């Protein structure tokens, strides 16, 4: 690690942080407009074109609002809780690769903040810490609804993190690695040829059941509908963030959206080929290079841009999917949630491991 390496790392961290922090405002706009359009309304459309400046207005409101600490709360933990929720959310994205590597001036630059050997185990571990934000907030608020919210959140987390971890075991078995870079690189291979089309070895094609389980459990993990029991506005008002206002509430909200971005990145990376290019982009790139308009370092940079674009498209799709599902499905009842987690998701994920084992043995 010399000086230039540190600078490159700093640029990567800065770019990622800016991207993550801008996810929340953009998503709040998408969520509001999207929900409105689905319900035959129009949504916020006054501030700027299509209401695009609305998130900035919201941010200004959050910042300048009075930020009171209620008298009955336990002050230290009350202030600490939004931070506990927010900081793990910011750090989890760092192991997800958003493009392959490029060689510039004799240096291999990887488009990933930290290339950890333990890969997504790190994400699970840090995301598991994020739950304490919810738990501490509910406890510190000294309010029965908040406490109920955090009790629900902790039991839900226990039941669903188990299935989530087990559903990913299948991916580890198929690609025989926990390093996200290796997994993505392996997904570039061709699984089989279907006539003229080459089906890539994306996780969704080799792990359909695992993908389904993972998709459902990440909804529970990020507390999004139909699993938003900890918030459950119609039952326990707003659950754990009932006593929070202004910027502290905004931090909970941002943590939720950033967690959504992280699990969308994880879904894209594990099951949809990560930065592997979308179908058709490869031939486009090849035709560029064959016609001679691109060569050498320019070609490499265009390749990186294409890969990043593919990754962003995939992540954006899943972010949209989160919003889409939220405005389609109603909330689970608590006993249904627990029953579904332990009696359906957990056995299914074990079956998935068994099937994957058989699949590997047969292939």
């Amino acid at each position: 690690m010399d000086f230039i390496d540190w600078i490159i790392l700093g640029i990567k961290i800065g770019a990622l942080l800016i991207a993550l922090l801008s996810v929340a405002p953009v998503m709040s706009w998408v969520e509001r407009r999207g929900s409105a359009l689905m319900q035959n309304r129009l949504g916020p459309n006054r501030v700027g074109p299509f209401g695009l400046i609305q998130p900035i207005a919201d941010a200004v409101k959050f910042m300048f609002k009075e930020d009171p600490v209620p008298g009955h709360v336990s002050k230290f933990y009350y202030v600490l809780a939004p931070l506990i929720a927010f900081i793990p959310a910011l750090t989890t994205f760092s192991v997800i690769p958003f493009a392959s590597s490029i060689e510039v001036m004799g240096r291999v630059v990887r488009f990933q903040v930290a290339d950890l050997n333990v890969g997504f185990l790190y994400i699970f571990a840090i995301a598991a810490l994020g739950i304490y934000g919810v738990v501490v907030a509910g406890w510190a608020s000294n309010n029965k609804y908040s406490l109920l919210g955090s009790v629900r959140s902790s039991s839900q987390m226990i039941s669903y993190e188990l299935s989530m971890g087990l559903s990913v075991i299948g991916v580890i078995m198929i690609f025989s690695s926990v390093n996200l870079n290796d997994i993505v690189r392996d997904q570039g291979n061709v699984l089989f040829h279907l006539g003229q089309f080459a089906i890539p070895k994306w996780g969704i094609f080799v792990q359909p059941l695992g993908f389904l389980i993972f998709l459902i459990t990440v909804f529970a993990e990020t507390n999004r509908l139909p699993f938003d029991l900890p918030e459950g506005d119609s039952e326990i008002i707003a659950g754990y963030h009932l006593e929070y206002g202004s910027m502290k509430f905004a931090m909970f909200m941002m943590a939720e959206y950033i967690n959504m971005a992280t699990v969308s990145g994880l879904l894209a990376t594990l099951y949809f080929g990560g930065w592997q290019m979308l179908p058709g982009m490869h031939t486009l790139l090849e035709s560029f290079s064959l016609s001679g308009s691109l060569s050498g370092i320019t070609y490499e940079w265009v390749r990186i841009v294409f890969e990043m674009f593919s990754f962003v498209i995939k992540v954006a799709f899943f972010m949209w999917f989160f919003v889409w599902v939220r405005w389609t499905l109603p909330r689970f009842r608590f006993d249904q949630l627990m029953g579904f987690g332990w009696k359906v998701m957990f056995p299914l994920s074990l079956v998935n491991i068994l099937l994957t084992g058989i699949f590997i043995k047969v292939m």
Partner: protein
Amino acid sequence: MEISPLFFYLFAGIAIAFSLFVVFSKSPISSAFSLIVVFFCFAAIYALLEAHLIAALQILVYAGAIMVLFIFVIMLLGADKEVLDFKKSSVFLKCSAVLFCGIGVCGFAWVLFHSPILIGTGPHSLEKIKMVGGNTRAISELLFSEYVLPFELTSILLLVGIVGCVVLVKRKSL
């Protein structure tokens, strides 16, 4: 890297401070929260030792899952209001506490005097692990070859524990 020792002392210091807080704190829930910090510091120390898998598992299992259960139980039972009175505990309890602490300290001392720090490096040096292909691969290969019997025995023990729990809390008539 030469900054590691500084970080080691930092995390070790935080861990010791918070484990003292775990013991001396009056409210069970603050004890539990401090225990999470202790676990987190352990994980950080593992990460400094390049044992990334252990670090991730430490956070995932201990800080992430087990402590959530602890806090869940504390919040559910409302044990926070209870003030423990240690003066009432019997002589027998005090003696056994001292005894078990002694055994624990002796055990740690034994481990320390047989640890690689004093008797040299173990068979799995950093270079060797890198050659095998990372921590995860090294540990899993060992678990499923050399130590497969203890591994399976442990899982049977856990299974027995689970079955025992279900039997204990099962309602008689349903």
